[in-house]
């Protein structure tokens, strides 16, 4: 099943009298269990692409579908709701809340949904990611790699359809970066997510099922090596 699909999505920005085509008309889809990487030079439109999928901005033309539901035409409030339910974000710098312990980061999801914290689920998820012993630590006490793993846990916790990662390894050294991407690839397969990762580092794409290159707003699929 296509968890995410873009049909003729285009994004332009008006900069004075100049029109910037940040994303040229694009068709794109990701299947269940598929791990996709997007690489490309700075300013090529990778973040624009990712934030349109995540519903943080709307396309100028075209439509975004999540689980075959039209997503991009919902209003801001409904998109936020959908984002909460179906999309897990992992950002470059840690997107953890500084005053919550790793466990409370997950508990917040329950608080918002007004549901009860599932202790077993938390335990399993965190040990899967190798950070169950850090459950009661605050983000400031974690290393960069541990933080990103906690961010992955946060993104996975409420079982979204799609995981969007914008340079999740930017603040990590090579070994930690490989570790984190490996975990992301494993969880994508196991939990049947559609994961899109934007990265600068081509070496990390070894774990991916498909690699796309963004250049001047044009997205092209790379040939398998």
């Amino acid at each position, binding site marked *: 099943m296509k968890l995410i699909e873009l049909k003729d999505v285009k994004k332009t920005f008006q900069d004075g009298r100049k029109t910037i085509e940040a994303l040229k008309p694009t068709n794109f889809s990701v299947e269940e269990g598929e791990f996709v990487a997007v690489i490309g030079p700075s300013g090529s439109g990778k973040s624009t692409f*990712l934030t349109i999928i995540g519903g943080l901005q709307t396309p100028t033309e075209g439509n975004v579908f999540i689980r075959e539901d039209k997503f991009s035409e919902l209003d801001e409030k409904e998109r*936020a709701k959908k984002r*909460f*339910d179906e999309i897990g974000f992992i*950002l470059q710098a840690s997107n953890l*809340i500084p*005053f*919550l312990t790793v466990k409370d980061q997950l508990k917040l999801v329950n608080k918002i949904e007004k549901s009860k914290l599932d202790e077993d689920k938390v335990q399993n998820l965190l040990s899967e990611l190798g950070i169950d012993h850090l459950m009661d630590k605050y983000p400031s006490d974690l290393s960069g790699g541990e933080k990103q793993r906690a961010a992955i846990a*946060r993104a996975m916790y409420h079982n979204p359809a799609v995981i969007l990662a914008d340079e999740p390894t930017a603040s990590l050294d090579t070994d930690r970066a490989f570790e984190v991407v490996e975990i992301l690839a494993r969880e994508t397969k196991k939990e049947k997510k559609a994961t899109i990762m934007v990265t600068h580092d081509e070496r990390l794409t070894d774990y991916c099922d498909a690699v796309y290159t963004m250049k001047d707003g044009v997205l092209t699929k790379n040939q398998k090596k």
Partner: protein
Amino acid sequence: MFLAWREIKYSKTRFALIIGVVILIAYLVFFLTGLAYGLAQENRMSIDKWDSDGIVLADESNLNINMSMFPKEQIDDIEASEKASLGVASSVVQPADESDEESKINVTFFGIDKEEFIFPEVVEGEEFESNREVIADISLREEEGIEIGDELSLAGMDLTVEIVGFTENAKFSVGPVLYTNHPTYQEIRASGFGEREEEIISAIVVRSDSEELADVETNSEDLNVYSTSEFISNLPGYTAQVLTFGLMIGFLVLIAAMIIGIFIYVLTLQKSSMLGVMKAQGISSSYIAKSVIGQTFLLSFIGVFTGLGLTLLTGLLLPATVPYQNNFIFLASITSLLIIVAVAGAFFSVRTVVNIDPLEAID
């Protein structure tokens, strides 16, 4: 509340400082209120004690009871459901066996009739039976150490009175009241005026059965009836004093709102990138706004109640001469006002929360 509490627990020092400021402001507001109320009470307590509806004063007195005098027999012309004659004279007294300046006390004598309704309830000792006996406000004992049976001499007069009983809440013009009978009052009043044949009084206190004293009739050109509340607000300095304190308290409450509002605003601005991330994760603005408001409520609740506790404690420790007095209605309304106003201040920040663009979380 989940986020609100966790954040307070995490940044203890920061929030302790904010709560500390709230405590100080609340303490100041409560304490000023207590003082203002106490002072106002000391002006009017003895009047409230009458439980009256109106007062008849001489027309030319301009509502100043000290300037009002007319013959006692005029009470017979007045129509009211209940009436009581009252003579007022301010004076300086001193324990008869002392002569130093320190021991002098400013008092007001109330000349009254034993059978009439303004006669005070005696909490200790006896009612006065004969001339030159007085019932005094209990503050004379609490503040000056004067006991039943003590003799007080009147300054500049060859006259002493004996304390036979004490009553409570009898203060007029921020000083104690001494109640005595009319003949004694005439002696006190007449000093300096020379002897006069007829008995003179200052006012007639009335109770009425109808709205706005409609059933009270003075039947005299020279007398005028005023409502008790009008009389109180025209006590010398009373309205000015109440207004001054009222304004100070009002401004303090506003300042409290602004300070808390600014604190919360700065905290929200500091957190804006984190809030952007939360919004990118799909956490709604209303959830975040609720937690900002909830946090303000917690901070102001803790701060205001601690301030209240400190004020009550201070009230217990203050010497009796400080006119501090608790009024639970005032304390309760200021407590809720401070909290409401603080929470209102936090609404500044809600706009900021709503305007944060989750896009800023990326890049």
